[in-house]
C-alpha cells in the first residue's frame, strides 16, 4: 500500500515535469517523447532478430563533442535485448539485466561493471535529452562477448544481428570413403536420437531436444550415397530425413566425441555402407550405444520375447486424478481402459499381465515401480487421462522418462560419474560434469532408448485409430517411470478437461480404439526386437 502511494507521487511529479517541458521548451516537438531525443538521429542501425521479432531501425546519436562515437539510448538497448532496467537517480546509475548478467552503468564514466567486473569503454556513458545514452561499442565489445546470445554487429553497414535460438545441432558435412559415405552432424551436446528406416530408401532421424536451422540442413543435392537431405524443426525435437541411394547396403548411426574439456566436439555420424548388390538398408537401433553399456544379463533379459507386461492404471483411491465437468474421475477411466488392455493383450500377444492395481485404491508411485520390477515385467505401460486449465487443449501423447531435473538427481549423476562403474581415469572433473546428463540417463533407466522407441510406436499406432489431435512423443520426468527396470512409457490418452474428449473417454468404442492402438504399438515393438535377435 505504501509503495503505491509513493509511486503515485512520483507519477504526479513526472507528469508535472513533462507538462513543464512542453510549455517552456516548446519548439522541441509535441507529443510525449517516448523513446529518447526529439532530435534527428545522426544515423540509424538495422536490427535483425532471429526470434521472429520484425526487423527495425533504431536511432543513433553523436552525443560526445568532437567524437564520431555513436550512442543509442538505454531504452533501445533494453528493448532490443529484453533487459530489465533499474535506474538510480541519486547516483545516476543504470542497471540492465540482460540474460543471466547484470550491467551497471554510471553516467559520465567509462566504467561498466559486468557482474561486478569492471570493463572500460572508449567513451563515457552520457545522459542526454532525458535518456541514458550508451555507446555502440558496448554492444560489440562488452555485451557480445559476455552474453549467451549470438550478437553480431556490423559497424560498417550498421546492422545488428541477434540470433537468439541456441542451436545444438550446428553443422552437417559429408565425407566420402572407400566403404561408403558419412554424413556428419556437429552437436553442442549429447542428444538422444531415434532412427527409423521403415520406408525403403529413407532414413528418418529424430533427435530428441534437437534444435537446428532447417535451411542449413536442407540439402537438395547430397553427396555419395546420400541423394538429398531434408530437415524439420518441431517445438521440441529436430528431424532429419535422408534420401539414400539404392546402392547403400546398410547403415550405422554412431556418436563420436573428440577433444577434451571445453573444446570437446560431439558428432553424430550416419554412415552408409556400399553394397555389392543394391539393398534396402536394414533396421538398426538407435540404442546401440546404450546397449554396449548394459551388462550381459540385463541385455539378455529384455532381448527374450516379451513374456510379461505391467499395466499401470494411473491414480486411484483418494487420488482422483483429473475430474471432468460431468464429475467423471480420471482414476476410473484409467482403470477401465487398463482392464480392457489387459484382456486384449492376453488374447493378442499371449503374454502375462501384471496390474499395479485392479481396484479403486491408492498405490504409491514408488510401489508401482516395485511391483513391476519384482514381477520381472518386460514392459511397463502407464495409462492416464490428461487435464488442462482451458477446454481448448485436446489429444493424445506418449511419454518416456527424461533426464535429471532435480538437484538431487544431478548430484547423483555426478557421483555416478565418479563411481567405478563408469570410471575413466583420463577424465577431468569438468569433463565428467559435461557427461553427467547422458550417464544419468543410463543409470536411471538403462532402457531409455527402447522406451523412446516403444513410445514412438504406440503413438504412431494410436494416430491410426484416434481422430483427436496427435500431440506427439514427449519426454518428461514422471515420478512413476523412475526406477523402472524395463522399457516404460506413460500414455495420456485424451483430455478430461475437453468437453468432447470427456464424452469420448466414457465411450466403450473409443476406449477399445485406444486399447487397439496400444496393443498394435507393443506388437510392432516386439516384432522389431525379435527380428533384431534373429540376426
Amino acid at each position: 500500500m505504501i509503495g503505491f502511494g509513493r509511486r503515485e507521487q512520483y507519477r504526479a511529479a513526472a507528469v508535472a515535469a513533462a507538462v513543464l517541458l512542453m510549455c517552456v521548451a516548446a519548439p522541441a516537438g509535441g507529443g510525449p517523447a517516448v523513446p529518447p531525443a526529439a532530435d534527428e538521429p545522426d544515423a540509424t542501425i538495422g536490427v535483425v532478430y532471429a526470434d521472429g521479432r520484425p526487423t527495425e531501425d533504431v536511432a543513433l546519436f553523436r552525443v560526445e563533442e568532437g567524437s564520431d562515437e555513436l550512442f543509442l539510448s538505454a531504452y533501445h538497448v533494453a528493448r532490443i535485448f529484453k533487459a530489465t532496467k533499474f535506474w538510480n537517480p541519486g547516483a545516476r546509475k543504470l542497471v540492465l539485466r540482460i540474460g543471466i548478467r547484470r550491467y551497471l552503468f554510471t553516467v559520465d564514466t567509462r566504467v561498466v561493471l559486468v557482474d561486478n567486473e569492471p570493463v572500460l569503454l572508449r567513451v563515457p556513458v552520457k545522459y542526454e535529452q532525458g535518456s541514458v545514452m550508451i555507446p555502440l561499442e558496448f554492444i560489440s565489445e562488452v555485451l557480445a562477448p559476455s552474453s549467451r546470445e549470438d550478437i553480431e554487429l556490423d559497424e560498417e553497414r550498421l546492422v545488428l544481428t541477434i540470433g537468439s535460438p541456441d542451436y545444438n545441432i550446428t553443422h552437417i558435412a559429408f565425407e566420402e570413403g572407400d566403404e561408403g559415405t558419412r554424413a556428419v552432424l556437429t552437436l553442442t551436446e549429447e542428444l538422444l536420437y531415434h532412427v527409423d528406416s521403415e520406408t525403403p530408401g529413407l532414413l528418418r532421424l529424430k533427435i530428441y531436444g534437437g534444435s537446428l536451422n532447417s535451411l542449413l540442413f536442407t540439402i537438395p543435392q547430397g553427396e555419395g550415397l546420400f541423394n538429398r537431405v531434408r530437415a524439420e524443426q518441431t517445438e521440441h525435437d529436430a528431424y532429419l530425413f535422408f534420401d539414400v541411394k539404392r546402392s547403400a547396403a546398410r547403415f550405422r548411426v554412431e556418436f563420436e566425441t573428440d577433444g577434451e574439456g571445453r573444446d570437446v566436439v560431439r558428432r553424430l555420424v550416419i554412415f552408409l555402407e556400399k553394397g555389392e548388390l543394391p539393398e534396402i538398408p536394414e533396421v538398426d537401433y538407435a540404442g546401440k550405444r546404450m546397449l554396449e553399456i548394459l551388462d550381459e544379463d540385463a541385455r539378455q533379459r529384455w532381448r527374450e520375447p516379451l513374456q510379461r507386461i505391467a499395466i499401470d492404471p494411473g491414480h486411484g483411491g483418494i487420488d482422483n486424478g483429473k475430474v471432468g465437468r460431468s464429475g467423471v474421475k480420471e482414476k476410473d477411466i484409467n482403470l477401465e481402459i487398463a482392464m480392457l488392455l489387459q484382456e486384449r493383450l492376453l488374447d493378442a500377444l499371449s503374454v502375462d499381465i501384471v496390474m499395479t492395481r485392479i481396484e479403486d485404491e491408492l498405490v504409491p508411485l514408488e510401489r508401482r515401480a516395485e511391483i513391476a520390477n519384482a514381477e520381472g515385467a518386460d514392459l511397463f505401460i502407464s495409462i492416464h487421462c490428461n487435464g488442462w486449465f482451458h477446454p481448448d487443449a485436446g489429444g493424445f501423447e506418449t511419454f518416456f522418462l527424461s533426464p535429471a531435473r532435480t538437484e538431487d538427481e544431478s548430484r547423483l549423476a555426478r557421483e555416478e560419474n565418479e563411481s567405478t562403474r563408469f570410471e575413466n581415469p583420463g577424465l577431468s572433473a569438468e569433463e565428467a560434469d559435461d557427461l553427467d546428463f547422458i550417464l544419468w540417463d543410463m543409470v536411471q533407466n538403462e532402457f531409455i532408448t527402447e522406451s523412446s522407441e516403444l513410445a514412438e510406436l504406440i503413438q504412431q499406432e494410436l494416430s491410426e485409430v484416434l481422430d483427436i489431435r496427435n500431440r506427439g512423443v514427449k519426454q518428461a520426468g514422471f515420478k512413476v517411470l523412475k526406477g523402472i527396470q524395463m522399457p516404460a512409457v506413460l500414455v495420456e490418452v485424451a483430455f478430461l478437461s475437453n468437453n468432447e474428449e470427456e464424452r469420448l473417454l466414457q465411450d466403450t468404442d473409443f476406449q477399445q480404439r485406444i486399447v487397439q492402438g496400444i496393443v498394435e504399438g507393443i506388437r510392432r515393438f516386439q516384432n522389431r526386437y525379435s527380428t533384431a535377435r534373429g540376426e
Partner: protein
Amino acid sequence: MQRGREEVIRTNLGRKIIIVLIAVVAVALIVYFLVMRPAMKREKAPVGIEEVPEETRSVTLYFAGPEADKLVPETHEIAVEEGLEAQVRAVIAELARGPADRDKVSSIPDGVQILQTFWVEDTQTLYLDFNRALITNHPGGSAGEYYTISTIIRTIGDNFPQVRYVQFLVAGYPIETIAGHYAVDKPLDVLRWR
C-alpha cells in the same frame, strides 16, 4: 538613400521584437522557477525509462498456450520491493493474477497465494511456500501439473538469475507432488526445467 532608411526601420522593428521576446522568456523563467521548482528538485528519470519509473520493474511472466503446448512470456510492470524474497513474492503474486492477454492461460490454480519465501544463498536455492490451494484447487492432469511447475520455475529463472534451484513447500512443508505426476519433494533445477 531609401535603402538605408528601410534598414534603419527594420533594425528598429528587430530590436522591438527582441525586447518583447526577452520579456516573454523572462516571464516564462520566473513562472518556471517560482511555480515548478519544487517538482524539479529530484532529477527526472530518463525518458523512455520514465515509462518504467524507478519504483517499478518489468518482469517476464510465463503462461501457457490455450492448448497446453507451449510456454508464452508476457511482460508485466510490478512494484520494486526491498530484497530478493519480497520481490519474489511480488512476482509470484503477479503470476497468480494471470495473463493480460486472452490468448494465454494461467496454470496457477485459483486461490493460490505465496505465504513465505526463503533464499539460501549458499545452495542457490529459493524456497517457495504456497497455501494449500496449490494442491486442493489443482484441476489435475499431467499437462496442468507440468505447466504449473514450469511456469513458476521459468518465471523465477528468468527474473532472478541468481536462483539455481527452487524448492516447493505447501503450508511450510515439502510435498511429494502437486497432482500426482511430477516429484517436487526435492529442489528443482531451474536450468533443466525449461
